[in-house]
């Protein structure tokens, strides 16, 4: 994979929350500058830690994270914030500012670019506001701009969460179990929105998920993790029962 088409390049990433216990055991992987990749694997295998290490919500113990032409693993302060604002993130629990309006939640995606006093006065450039309205239309919440976030349903909140991340004009979109708190129908809609927005805005998307079928349906590439290592990396078609056994262990759950 050449540098121009690579959005993210992780080299020898190790994370130990407790000394000697490797949650991530030397992850090395590249992500292309387009397409949706799904990271699957059992709970507690480090999927979430991997994603959170990329935007440094979790401090990596060792390894490099090449993004935007530099290693962002050692960055601190302003440089770290500037790297983070180019990486959008969608959370399982949405993590909206509950008591603010939908519009304010979208604009909070611009906080990394907006001087603090202007943000405090809610003075955003008109182009940010236009973009916010356009994104609200795209995620199907066009008439919700002035609703408070805590008045929305789970699916609607997650749409706001995605729109907020895309407001950052990110060069990479991370989604940490974005559908795990949602019903199956809403999950499919949310995955569809992420795939479509990723394509339209040219943003590569990396999604952590539990649901293998959903991953197969939406992902261009599947990464299977087990015990802090990558045990499968390939197209969705390659996910045979044998591969799933390697990822999740056991076989009794693979009924029929």
């Amino acid at each position, binding site marked *: 994979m050449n540098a121009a088409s690579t959005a993210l390049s992780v080299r020898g990433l190790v994370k130990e929350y407790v000394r000697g216990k490797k949650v991530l055991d030397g992850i090395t992987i590249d992500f292309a500058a387009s397409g949706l990749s799904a990271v699957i694997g059992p709970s507690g295998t480090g999927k979430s830690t991997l994603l959170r290490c990329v*935007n440094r*919500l979790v401090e990596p113990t060792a390894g490099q994270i090449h993004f935007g032409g530099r290693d962002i693993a050692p960055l601190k302060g302003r440089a770290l*914030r*500037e*790297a*983070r*604002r*180019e*990486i*959008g*993130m969608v*959370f399982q*629990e949405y*993590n*909206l*500012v*509950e*008591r*603010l309006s939908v519009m*304010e939640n979208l604009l*909070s*995606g*611009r*906080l*990394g*670019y*907006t001087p*603090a006093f202007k*943000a*405090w006065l809610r003075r955003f450039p008109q182009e940010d506001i236009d973009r916010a309205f356009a994104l609200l239309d795209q995620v199907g919440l066009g008439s919700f701009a002035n609703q408070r976030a805590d008045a929305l349903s789970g699916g609607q909140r997650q749409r706001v*969460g995605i729109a*907020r991340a895309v407001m*950052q004009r990110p060069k990479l979109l991370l989604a940490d179990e974005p559908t795990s708190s949602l019903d199956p129908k809403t999950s499919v809609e949310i995955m569809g929105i992420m795939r479509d927005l990723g394509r339209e805005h040219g943003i590569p998307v990396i999604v952590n998920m539990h649901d293998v079928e959903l991953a197969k349906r939406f992902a261009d590439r599947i990464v299977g993790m087990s015990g802090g290592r990558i045990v499968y990396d390939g197209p969705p078609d390659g996910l045979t029962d044998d591969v799933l056994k390697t990822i999740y262990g056991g076989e009794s759950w693979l009924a029929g």
Partner: protein
Amino acid sequence: MSATASIEQRRWRRFTPRQRLARFAVYLTLVVAIVLSARTVEVIPEFLYDAPEQMRDLLERMWPIAWSHYPKGVHEALVETLHIATLGTLIALVMALPVGLMAANNVVPNRVVNYLAKLVLVSSRSVNSLVWALLFVAVFGPGALAGTLAIAFRSVGFVGKLFGEALEESNRGTIEALEATGAPWSSRLAWGYWPQVKPAFWSIALFRWDINVRESAVLGLVGAGGIGMALDTALNLFQWDRVAMVLFSIFSVVVVAEIIVTQIRKKIL
């Protein structure tokens, strides 16, 4: 049926023997403490037997209440009391905001700063309003200024502590999301923490104002202005009907303050 009968009966007890012993010890200590303190208090029986009669005498002297005393002797002092309470609360809010922020470990992740802020808050609370008032009367002389500062300095600890705790209880996920957008610290504060703690903050402020209305009413006893001074004068001159007037005014104001606070709280929460 016979199968279940053969199974050994399992017992369940709410407390382990050790817990039962501990609970017994607590009850025993309580009884001993009550007996001991009753012996130390040294009630003088004559005064105790006399009390109902004295009480009746006092109430008779208080009645009828000296309503006519209100316009010239009470009104101004009452308004001053409200001013002391309100201004004192406002000053306390301004001082408590930064100290509360510094006390919250998730907002300022620096143990040294946290402990310093908590030290300030504890010192403020460990001194009673009346003692603060005595200190400020000594510094600024008697009057409303001493009272206002006493109220403010006592309230900082209360407001700052509760505000800091509200901050520490705010949802981590929301802050994490703003961190992920690359928002600077001050924007995370204004967009992440403040919306979450805003209702708590105003609720604490109102609650403290309510307390301060009551506290500022007695500050006059040590010369720090307000209606307490009118009360002090009337008490010293044994004008019990005027004392009754003052007490009634304080009671009315406290009731009105309570009603106002409840109504506003309903609106903001």
